[in-house]
């Protein structure tokens, strides 16, 4: 029934989109598929800020449409196709679960350019883009290892996809550098967005002794729980300092604007190619919110770690990387290959959890 209502909403928006198409034929029409509402303050909100930044930069050279609240999976195919059919030449699908539907529509509309966020499937007219969020997670781990008094960190995870798993791994690897005995408790909530459930998970983690909460879900609920309990937390996707002025240590901020502008410019100039873009702290697709609520030495350590990652002297997944069983993971170079990180489906040593469904 939820699906029904999403579809209805998408259809209604698509009608609006069609209405505009006649007026501006020469403009580049850019479409966006959003997972949540633009006001979620998390993942979708940051994509929306990216879209706005692109519009601001390119002005009337582009015309944009977005469909929000599009549920993942086969259902999204209809929404993507709506955009394709209504004259959009460049379409961004902004969540992992849109991967196969995007591929399907891309094959059907070979002249339209597709860009899928955080996935790993391509076509001649379908590129992928994602942020190296694990770089930020590693820094958070370094900070958390220092800041935790109980030696237990709490991690609210959404779905067992590589991006989330690599985030958990990077966190514990970072934390082990500052506290070798650190423990990480993981709760899978099986949703990207359910403020109540995220708050419940944060409470459960705090009740079981975690005193630094980190999340891979979208709302500031966990931050507020941490604030009530007087413990620390990291924000997610956007700077959530407003919800925990004395709680937030830092936050990974997703900065899509420059990339969206670049891709639209390339499409306008006719130089667009389907590529796999994977930018991190260096390219500023991943940005750290100000380091707050921590002593100066921890702050300095965090800044040093950030600088080392940007400078290329530190890689969170530097070989050897030990799996949960203590055996080293196969390594070809000095660090894990990008493909190994993008497709990560194993835990590293020290994570006290089992990946759901494995």
């Amino acid at each position, binding site marked *: *029934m*939820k699906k*029904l*209502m999403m579809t*209805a*909403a998408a259809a209604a928006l698509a009608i609006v989109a069609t209405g505009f198409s006649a007026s501006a034929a020469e403009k580049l029409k850019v479409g966006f598929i959003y997972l*949540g*509402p633009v*006001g*979620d*303050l998390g993942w979708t909100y940051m994509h929306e800020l990216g879209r706005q930044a692109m519009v601001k930069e390119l002005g009337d050279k582009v015309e944009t449409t977005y469909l929000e*609240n599009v549920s993942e999976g086969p259902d999204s195919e209809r929404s993507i196709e709506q955009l394709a059919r209504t004259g959009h030449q460049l379409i961004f699908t902004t969540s992992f679960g849109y991967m196969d539907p995007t591929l399907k529509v891309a094959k059907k509309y070979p002249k339209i350019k597709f860009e899928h966020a955080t996935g790993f499937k391509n076509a001649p007219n379908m590129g992928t883009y994602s942020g190296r969020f694990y770089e930020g997670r590693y820094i958070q781990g370094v900070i958390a290892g220092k800041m935790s008094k109980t030696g237990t960190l*709490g991690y609210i995870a959404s779905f067992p996809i590589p991006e989330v798993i690599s985030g958990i791994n990077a966190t514990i690897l970072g934390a082990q550098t500052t506290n070798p005995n650190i423990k990480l*408790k*993981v*709760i*899978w*909530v*099986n*949703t990207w*967005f*359910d*403020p*109540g*459930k*995220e*708050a*419940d*998970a944060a*409470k*459960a*983690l705090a*009740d*079981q002794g*975690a005193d630094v909460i980190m999340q891979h879900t979208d*709302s*500031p*609920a966990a931050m*507020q729980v941490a604030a009530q309990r007087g413990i620390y937390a990291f924000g997610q996707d956007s700077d959530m300092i*407003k*919800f925990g002025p004395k709680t937030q240590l830092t936050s990974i901020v997703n900065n899509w604007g420059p990339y969206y502008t670049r891709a639209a410019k390339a499409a306008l100039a006719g130089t667009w190619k389907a590529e796999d873009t994977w930018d991190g702290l260096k390219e500023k697709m991943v940005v750290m919110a100000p380091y707050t609520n921590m002593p100066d030495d921890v702050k300095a350590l965090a800044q040093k770690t950030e600088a080392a990652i940007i400078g290329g002297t530190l890689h969170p997944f530097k070989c050897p990387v030990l799996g949960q069983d203590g055996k080293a993971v196969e390594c070809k170079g000095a660090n894990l290959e990008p493909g190994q990180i993008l497709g990560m489906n194993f835990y590293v040593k020290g994570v*006290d*959890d*089992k990946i*759901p*469904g494995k």
Partner: protein
Amino acid sequence: MGLLEAIIISVIAASTPLLLAAAGELVVERSGVLNLGTEGMMIMGAACGFAGAWLTGSTFIGALFGIAAGCALSLVFAALTLGLAVNQVAAGLALTILGVGLSGLIGAGFVGEKITPAPHLYLPVLTGIPFVGKILFGQDGFVYFSVALVVAIWWFLYRTRAGLVLRAIGDSHTSAHALGYPVLKIRLLAVLFGGGCAGLGGAFLPLAYTPFFIPGMTAGRGWIALALVVFSSWMPGRLAAGAYLFGAVTILQLHAQAFGLGIPSQLMSALPYLATVVVLVLISRARGSAGSVAPASLGTVFVPDR
């Protein structure tokens, strides 16, 4: 605070929005009307409740806003299904879609704002009692109200004449009509009551649970409340037990994970629904050929002049 105590407090908080919304829907369904718009009324209650509390700084006024929003939306449903005799399932689904959209619009200006959460009761000696003190005497007003509401509904349905009439209408609207009872008027009151309860249940989320508003924050709790009514086989006592059971399953699965017990979280998330199916099967087997426990006129349209 001990772990068990902490878990119980979390369970009560997680159950309260379900209990409030489901209690209202139970009365609606007992009058023979099926309103599937609970999710829409809840999210409207959340948006308007937050707006009210943010504008006035008062949780109480916020809660009243939430109730009013739920009532207003249910009035639309009543106009369609009671006034125009429209199909109740279609009207209820439409109500949810309307509520989700409208609440996003109303709430858009409030996204990113925060409020002080509802105050918790504090009694000098009683709240300090180890273990039970905070559970019994340290909750917020919504929790006490939800319990009182269920008791009141039980008393109304089984101990008052008006309650008997409402149940009679739910079981056979034509007979009740023939006896001279105002079927549509009573159903209207029931639908409004249900709307108010759903609105209050929704308002609980931004006012007490997670003190901010985000579109779609009810995240399917309205549907769980509907399942809960069926689970309770339309009995207030079982409804309360079911609400706390659903809440307990939600919270315990999180704790089980944090403990590192290897129970698949997806299975645990599906448990409330599985439980509903099991209960339906059990009820149906226990009853044998005696028929359903659902109000006999549930979901059927009544046109008085026939």
